[in-house]
């Protein structure tokens, strides 16, 4: 690296050319040692930091490419949740008359759709990210964790845009914001980490087992029904509520609603979601690191 000094264009080309060799001051320790991995693999934060620009460019690429050659461009970030909201408001709000805990159903369901759209897109994009970038994996080195993480980070922009639309709804429905909105940043962080955990794991599994590609859309669909997005947790009979509560997204979605409508937080559910997220995050990164060394061989 910096320790290697080099004079430009001096014509030195190889050993046996005498004194020019003294220009080289190799580092005492190797910059990189390549060995078969040990059974325990550390996260290697130093490497992740070294390759931060690669992460930045992959996020930038994913954002740039997503809306290239589209007529509506970035408006898609709004169209998707908006039309879901209209459909849900009509079918579940108007026809089935699902309870929304007293809030106007359309905005209530939109608040649930927001984190859900981010989470489900993040999962779908990151789950397929390693396969989609197989040309990179087989040709250049960088920490592979960057790939699924970049796919998720790129989704945060859409999340922000869809969120801006929500702010437009608030005066329309005559809602006052309370201090509870201060909980929004930690909630966004929590859902991002949950998406990272599950997305990283899914991407690694998908590289090895292509079954994941078929299962993923369907699992995402089922997961939506297991999360109180179109219905409130309060209409679930108490004896079944624990099933829904096992889903770490439940606490998060309910948390978003509490934050925006100023309702009391269910701290127990939130703490549970945070604990599950932390556990999954650590465990799935460990799994990913274990599988990482074989990606180039199996993808």
């Amino acid at each position, binding site marked *: *690296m910096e320790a*290697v000094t*080099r*004079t*430009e*264009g*001096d*014509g*030195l*080309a*190889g*050993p046996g050319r005498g004194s*020019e*060799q003294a*220009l*080289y001051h*190799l*580092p005492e320790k*190797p*910059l*990189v*040692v*390549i*060995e*078969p*991995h040990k059974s325990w693999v550390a996260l290697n934060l130093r490497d992740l930091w070294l390759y931060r*620009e*690669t992460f*930045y*460019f992959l996020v*930038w*690429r994913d954002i*740039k*490419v997503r809306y*290239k*050659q589209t007529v509506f461009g970035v408006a898609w970030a709004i169209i998707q949740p908006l039309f879901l909201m209209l459909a849900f408001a009509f079918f579940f709000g108007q026809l089935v008359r699902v309870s929304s805990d007293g809030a106007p159903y359309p905005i209530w369901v939109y608040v649930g759709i927001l984190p859900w759209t981010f989470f489900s897109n993040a999962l779908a994009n990151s789950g397929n990210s390693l396969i989609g970038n197989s*040309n*990179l*994996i*087989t*040709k*250049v*080195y*960088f920490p592979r964790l960057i790939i699924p993480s970049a796919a998720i980070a790129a989704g945060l922009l859409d999340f922000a845009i869809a969120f801006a639309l929500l702010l437009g709804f608030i005066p329309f429905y005559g809602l006052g914001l309370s201090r509870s909105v201060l909980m929004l940043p930690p909630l966004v962080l929590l859902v991002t980490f949950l998406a990272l955990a599950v997305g990283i794991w899914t991407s690694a599994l998908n590289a*090895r*087992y*292509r*079954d*994941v590609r078929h299962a993923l859309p369907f699992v995402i669909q089922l997961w939506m029904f297991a999360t109180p997005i179109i219905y409130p947790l309060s209409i679930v009979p108490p004896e079944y509520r624990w099933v829904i509560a096992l889903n770490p997204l439940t606490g998060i979605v309910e948390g978003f609603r509490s934050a925006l409508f100023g309702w009391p937080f269910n701290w127990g559910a939130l703490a549970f979601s945070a604990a599950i997220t932390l556990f999954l995050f650590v465990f799935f990164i460990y799994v990913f690191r274990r599988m990482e*060394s*074989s990606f*180039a*061989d*199996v993808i």
Partner: protein
Amino acid sequence: MRPIIKVENLSKRYRIGTGAAHRGALRYTTLRESLSRMASAPFKKLSRGGRAPEETIWALRDVTFDIMPSEVVGIIGANGSGKSTLLKVLSRITEPTTGRVELYGRVASLLEVGTGFHPDLTGKENIYLNGAVLGMKRREIARKFDEIVAFAEIDKFLDTSVKYYSSGMYVRLAFAVAAHLDPDILIVDEVLAVGDASFQKKCLGKMDDVTKSGRTVLFVSHAMEMIAQLCERTILMKDGRINKAGPSREVIDYYIGLYNRG
């Protein structure tokens, strides 16, 4: 004088599936297979030898060599002799099965031109993306940007998506980015034969400059003339082992002799 690359007893084993063996493809497991293997594992000890042992192939076997700073070394050998696997291990793309490599400098590897190019992005955007993927810093790319564009001769099409480029323009741009990498160690796999005759000459000239600038270069190629011209030392690979290493002319003559005799 210490080496900048130290390779010790490097071996790499690949598992090849029985069905996929003839295609040379790697076996990839389905979840169902893994699950059934997991379920049957406890019984396997009872029925010993019930299943055929897994077929494996040693793509690299006990490869040991040192490379000194600013040496330019060619690697030659027939298809399947382990050249590309060696470069992949040195580039950290795949892990060795045994052995050890020590690298005392920053490595950039060029196993293909245009790695990471995205067809929907413009020429300009792809220069940044490709540069970043190859390990350049944003500032470094910005500094060399004009040089890259001039080398690729595509200045009129900078803001056009590369999917509309002719294949010649595409490889010129891709090579131009790669040619402006500035690592201590450059690893190159058969990527120089791109573009038309005049551009190839330009590429070769550029590679000549690179090798003379004191950089350590490892070169895989089937173009013997180019190896003879650029490298003073050459390693001949055969069946995953080093068959012969020494001055380029000598090794190349030996290699050509092997085939003429047969």
